[in-house]
């Protein structure tokens, strides 16, 4: 190869070459046991496999009133003892394979996932089935996990971002399901009994409609046989009817200050109720949010960070949940800029509702979202995450194939319509976590209530 000395034109972006087509990797669905389907995406980019036992419909939305944290505690206990193995044996068997096992509950689902080298898939599958089917929730393990959770709750009070997120949810949803802390609080965690855990498992985890996700370097036929053997003992109960979560009554614009007198900075959140993931306008909302606060070059980030230097970064998000989850804007600002930052954010919301976005802005957002989609399928976890969405939100199997066209079909009119329907600057809750004495005067026009990090009211100094 001889160096070519052609002069390049640096004055404008070079033209792209023709794009290569991309399609989401193929996947197959088949029955493994009554009430249990497998979704298999053979994907040979490395000797890795991601296995996931996923139960949609359960999750923290099923926590009973007064027992917040039950779903997440149940999940934490799944790998702490089965009919065949004690907690440390499970850990030893998983880690001997070099595997990583995690059990967790979100709002909408409980999941047990295993990342493992492909050579060890049969053994990993057997372990996954043991944990999913055979969990026995030993009393001493519940006490252990309870103590760990109480320490975690104490620790969360130190974290300004965690305080801000929880306070925002509480302010938006009040006593509603999404207003409760997913990890529970001191009182509810103390109240959880082994009986409650076992009930939760029987009613919301060991139920029909679960999915076994297998993504990575596997032979689909061989894996189906193995999975049928491993899950032969699966005897699920019928799931409870789908939960309908209603949006809370909206309230007028107001502020809450969580007082941390020594804080070096202020964590800010602004938000209100959003829309369910399955809502037909969700694609329009996704593109709109990308422009508002979903990427580095979003309006809010460029405004607060690049124009004003108030912050290291700012972003916005519509939560993806089966019910109407929150829409929220998050940033951490120098405390003396908190009031101005809030005003700028509200101004951006009003602007997005007032006039259509620029054509280029729309095109940028759409191609960025499609780029992220491609970027995400590089990893087995990324592919599994997309397949998880199908199961959790009951989306059709061709959803992933249609995703690009759904995003591309969002135009300036539908985006403006989405902004007007789903952004409401007059119904925001503002949460500021920082030095109360400095924050209150700046937020005076939104009549802030002041509380301490434990949620108790504080009188201004």
């Amino acid at each position, binding site marked *: *190869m001889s*160096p*070519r000395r*052609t*002069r*390049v034109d*640096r*004055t404008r*972006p*070079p*033209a*792209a*070459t*023709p*794009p*290569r087509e*991309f399609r989401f990797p193929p996947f197959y669905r088949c029955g493994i046991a009554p009430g249990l389907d497998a979704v298999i995406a053979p994907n040979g980019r*490395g000797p*890795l496999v991601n296995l996931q036992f996923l139960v949609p419909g359960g999750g923290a939305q099923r926590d009973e009133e007064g027992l917040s944290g039950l779903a997440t505690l149940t999940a934490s206990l799944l790998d702490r003892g089965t009919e065949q193995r004690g*907690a*440390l044996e499970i*850990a*030893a068997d998983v*880690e*001997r*394979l*070099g*595997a990583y096992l995690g059990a967790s509950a979100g709002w909408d689902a409980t999941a047990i996932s295993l*990342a*493992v*080298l492909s050579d060890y898939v049969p053994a990993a599958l057997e372990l996954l089935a043991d944990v999913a089917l055979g969990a026995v929730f030993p009393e001493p393990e519940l006490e*252990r996990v309870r*103590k*760990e959770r109480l*320490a975690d709750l104490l*620790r969360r009070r*130190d974290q300004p971002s965690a305080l801000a997120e929880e306070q925002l949810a509480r302010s938006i949803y009040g006593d509603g399901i999404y207003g409760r802390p997913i990890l529970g609080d001191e009182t509810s965690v103390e109240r959880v009994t082994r009986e409650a855990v076992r009930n939760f498992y029987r009613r919301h985890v060991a139920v029909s409609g679960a999915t076994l996700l297998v993504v990575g370097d596997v032979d689909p036929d061989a894996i189906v046989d193995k999975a049928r053997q491993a899950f032969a003992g699966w005897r699920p109960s019928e799931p409870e009817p789908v939960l309908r979560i209603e949006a809370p009554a909206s309230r007028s614009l107001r502020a809450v200050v969580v007082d941390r007198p*020594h*804080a*070096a*900075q202020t964590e800010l959140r602004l938000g209100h109720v959003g829309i369910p993931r399955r809502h037909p306008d969700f694609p329009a909302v996704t593109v709109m949010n990308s422009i508002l606060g979903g990427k580095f*070059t979003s309006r809010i980030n460029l405004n607060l960070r*690049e124009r004003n*230097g*108030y912050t*290291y970064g700012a972003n916005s998000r519509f939560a993806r949940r089966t019910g109407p989850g929150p829409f929220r804007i998050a940033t*951490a600002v*120098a405390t003396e800029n908190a009031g101005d930052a809030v005003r700028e954010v509200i101004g951006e919301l009003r602007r997005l509702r007032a006039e259509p976005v620029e054509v280029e802005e729309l*095109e*940028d957002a759409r*191609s*960025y979202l499609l*780029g*992220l989609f*491609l*970027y995400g*399928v*590089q*990893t*087995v976890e990324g592919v599994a995450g997309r397949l998880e969405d199908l199961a959790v939100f009951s989306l059709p199997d061709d959803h992933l194939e249609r995703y690009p066209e759904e995003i591309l079909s969002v135009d300036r009119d539908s985006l403006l319509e989405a902004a007007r329907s789903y952004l409401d600057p007059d119904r925001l809750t503002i949460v500021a976590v920082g030095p109360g004495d400095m924050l209150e005067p700046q937020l005076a026009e939104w009549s802030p209530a002041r509380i301490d990090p434990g949620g108790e009211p504080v009188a201004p100094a």
Partner: protein
Amino acid sequence: MVIHPDPSLPLVAVNLWYHVGSKNERQGRTGLAHLFEHMLFQGSEHVAANDHFRYVQQAGGVLNGSTWYDRTNYYETLPSNHLRLGLWLESDRMGFLLPALTPEKLENQREVVMNERRQRVDNQPYGRAMERLHELLYPEGHPYRWPVIGYMDDIAAASLDDVETFFRTFYAPNNAVLSLVGDLDPEVAMEEAEAWFGELPAGPPVPEVQVASAALPGDAREVLEDNVNLARLYLAWSLPRFGHEDWYAADLLSRVLTEGRSSPLYQDLVYRRQIARDVSSFVFPTELASTFLLVATARPETDPAALLQALDEHLVRAASEELPPDDIERARNRLLTGWYSDLQTVGRRADLLSQMTTFFDQPERIATEADRYRQLGGPELRSLARRLLTRDRRAVVTVLPRRRGQ
């Protein structure tokens, strides 16, 4: 320059390592390398401020940069038909940065970085611990003594002149490695890179970093109070550089001791005695020396002194008894899973290639890196603990909950 074709997805990673980081700074101007990284996103002669982000994102790409002790990296993963865009953007800021630099941009990014420091350090629970730990571990004049993000006063003091000098000293082709990974034709990629970067002139030789003689910290200890509810211990040792055989032994030992619920420290401190909420350890892959870090968070009712004593018992045992082969096998298997997991993305592969090339001039080491752990067993790990993880070589920072009324 390193090229690694992989056509499995229509993606290409463009990754640049500049061999400059916080170790190349001087006292009074700490944080300059990182602040400078921010300035590289503020446009260059042919690219307006923030257009770097805009062009990459509108092409469907993902991008960022980061600064560490020894290096600063800049990277984008793009749909592969936009390879040229990445080369144009990276070559423009390597060759044509200064005409676009203005005092206003610097002023703005100084504010942004000061807020970054508040967000990551000053307003984080335990945020100051790592800083103090390094100050105890590394003597005055050692370039790993100060934090990568820099001290607040130094960030505030950085001038346009500092930034320009930094660019002229460190930002030139002779101090950089370019890695291209993904859906590309190697010959075309080579030609394109030559076309965009070939005409950029080399800079002057990069000044060598002076390392102060390594006085041992001698079990230096400090107690910090912070707005936290749980006490936490930070123990650190300075070990041989990344690439040294001791480094791999330290990395493996760290994983044996604390990774996973089968590890001895987790089982003893978190599971059985329940005196810690968590325990973890790491060894940094840095070039002048490496820092071995052991961190444990106490339970609300635990006396931190008892926790330190328990950690000490484990360290003494690691130095005197051979670890069981099963424990080592487990850690090695986990390491392998993590390694393959890392290699899934073109971006991470490109970054590793840049690293191996910058530090060792051997990109091919990426293929044999995992094998280095196969030759290590009980005797090597015990020897490492006995020789290097000793009390006189370490520093300890204890973070305690702030007493009420303060």
